[in-house]
């Protein structure tokens, strides 16, 4: 099945534009912000799904990559580019590249560590990144980084974020069905057998990490420019877990599942907003319950490894 089939692409672009037009003219700015945040969540979920779902390397540190992307892009626009919004794609790419470099470092021990231990190392990495930003005065330390340049209006932000989401999906989807992706599947199923079959497992894991951290950094950069404010507290352990929940609900290994789950889980807390929680973020109650039930009742997630199209 080829995702790039022409009629599908046309259909996809048209529906994207239609949704954009509806959001622009018929819905309020709150819903518009939700749509953007859905797309950013989807980028993050895709990036985690590639490393955890396809390559079976459990990462609990995607908040760290996200933080690197967000801070790099914010600092670059502020320092060199005089807060011009049309440089955002460039700085976002720079942020993604910094995150990739960090991803390379994190991937180095991954050939030695498996499962739980890798999860702990990635979690530790994210925590170290967070503490470094917390202690770095130039980016505001614990107060956070204020007044990051934002997209000028909804239509541009929608188009650009949507474009990046599209690219992310396209690249990761095609990687998943490519020869490289098949190597990763082999690795996922049985590491020893994959090695015996002659796939270079250490190298493949490293590359998978590079791709994943690149898109995580990209998502982080977009996140910063969307909100206009980032602080180390936004990139704590809970952020990593939230990304994990998106990927798990959609189905580890299913790219379209991640996008679907990001949509559901971005909308769900808004629906539940009326519940009395005494000022606690309702997501932090719903998500863990969902996660536990999911693991017991349907561990493969909504779509398993299948794709919607």
């Amino acid at each position, binding site marked *: 099945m080829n995702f790039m089939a022409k009629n599908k692409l046309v259909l996809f672009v048209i529906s994207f534009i239609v949704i954009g037009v509806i959001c622009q003219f018929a819905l309020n700015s709150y819903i518009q912000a939700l749509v953007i945040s859905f797309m950013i969540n989807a980028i993050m979920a895709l990036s985690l799904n590639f490393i955890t779902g396809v390559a079976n390397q459990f990462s609990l540190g995607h908040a760290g990559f996200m933080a690197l992307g967000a801070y790099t892009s914010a600092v670059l626009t502020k320092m060199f580019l005089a807060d011009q919004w049309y440089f955002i794609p460039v700085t976002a790419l720079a942020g993604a590249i910094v995150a990739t470099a960090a991803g390379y470092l994190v991937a180095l021990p991954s050939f030695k560590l498996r499962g739980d231990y890798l*999860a702990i190392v990635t979690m530790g990495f994210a925590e170290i990144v967070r*503490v470094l930003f917390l202690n770095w005065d130039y980016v505001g330390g614990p107060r956070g980084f204020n007044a990051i340049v934002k997209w000028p209006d909804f239509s541009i932000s929608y188009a650009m974020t949507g474009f990046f989401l599209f690219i992310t999906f396209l690249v990761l989807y095609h990687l998943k069905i490519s020869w490289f992706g098949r190597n990763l599947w082999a690795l996922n199923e049985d590491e020893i057998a994959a090695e015996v079959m002659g796939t270079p497992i250490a190298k493949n894991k490293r590359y998978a990490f590079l791709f994943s951290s690149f898109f995580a950094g990209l998502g982080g950069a977009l996140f910063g420019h969307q909100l206009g404010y980032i602080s180390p507290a936004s990139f704590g352990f809970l952020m990593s877990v939230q990304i994990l929940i998106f990927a798990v609900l959609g189905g580890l290994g299913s790219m379209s599942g991640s996008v679907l789950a990001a949509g559901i889980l971005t909308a769900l807390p808004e629906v539940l907003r009326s519940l009395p929680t005494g000022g606690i973020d309702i997501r932090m109650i719903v998500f863990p319950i969902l996660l536990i039930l999911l693991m017991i009742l349907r561990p493969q997630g909504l779509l398993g490894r299948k794709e919607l199209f």
Partner: protein
Amino acid sequence: MQEFLQHTLNGLSFGSVYALIALGYTMVYGILAMINFAHSDIYMMGAFGTFYFINFLKLGESPSPITFAIGLLAAMLFSGLVGFLVEKLAYKPLRNSPKMNVLITAIGVSILFEFGGQIVFGVNPKSFPQLMVDAEIFNFMDISVRLLDIIIYLVTIISLVSLSFLIGKTQTGRAMQAVSSRPDMAPLMGININKIISFTFVVGSVLAGVAAVLVAMKYPKIDPMMGVKIGTSAFVAAVFGGIGSLPGAVLGGYILGLGEYYLIGYGASTYKEALSFMLLILILLVKPTGLMGTKAKEKI
């Protein structure tokens, strides 16, 4: 020198607490090969259980050794109960699932406790009732040795001795060792695996309850997130000592407690949280089995 000794004393009392919590992590890992992320929240629940129980009995105004004993027992019971329920409801249905699913569930349970706790107990820190009056026992060359620190050392030593008796000398303890070393063979020897796993969870949780009371007496502010930092450090201590190894957990706990206290004592306290993780990554890279762990052979 005097300053150094004071940091050492404080570090030792914190190390004791880390050791008690790390034992819970390492026992569960030893028997189920899973990281029980919710362990730090069982610790938190122990503190809250004691808080409500002592306030219910209105013992908060009369600190005495008896009050302390009641508080300690309440915490042990409550933590043990919570640990038992968590294992039964969340982990048992996943006994045969892939490891990643169990880990994800554990994360879910942990977050549920933290944020559910914020709804049930409230976000603001509560002040823990005074169970015993703290006093300076003696002062030697400006090093003050306080009653609470002595209690912490004593209670920890008693707990460790009883734990090693339980594991080494009783039949249940031997069954725990058997399940830990060969989970596939233990049932053939007539061991009820589910019972032993439950029991291990309860023992680990009881130790966490003990730690909770000790910490809450020394720093009498408790809130639903109180377990996060201390749990992380204790987990690092368990890995540092070699996860699955009981003496390793104790050793790791003391090393980490002392290390953190020296770090705080000599400036650099803002890097404290990163320290434990840097230490962890370092140890995993250099010697993934930890100080006292044994390397399991991988069979194909």
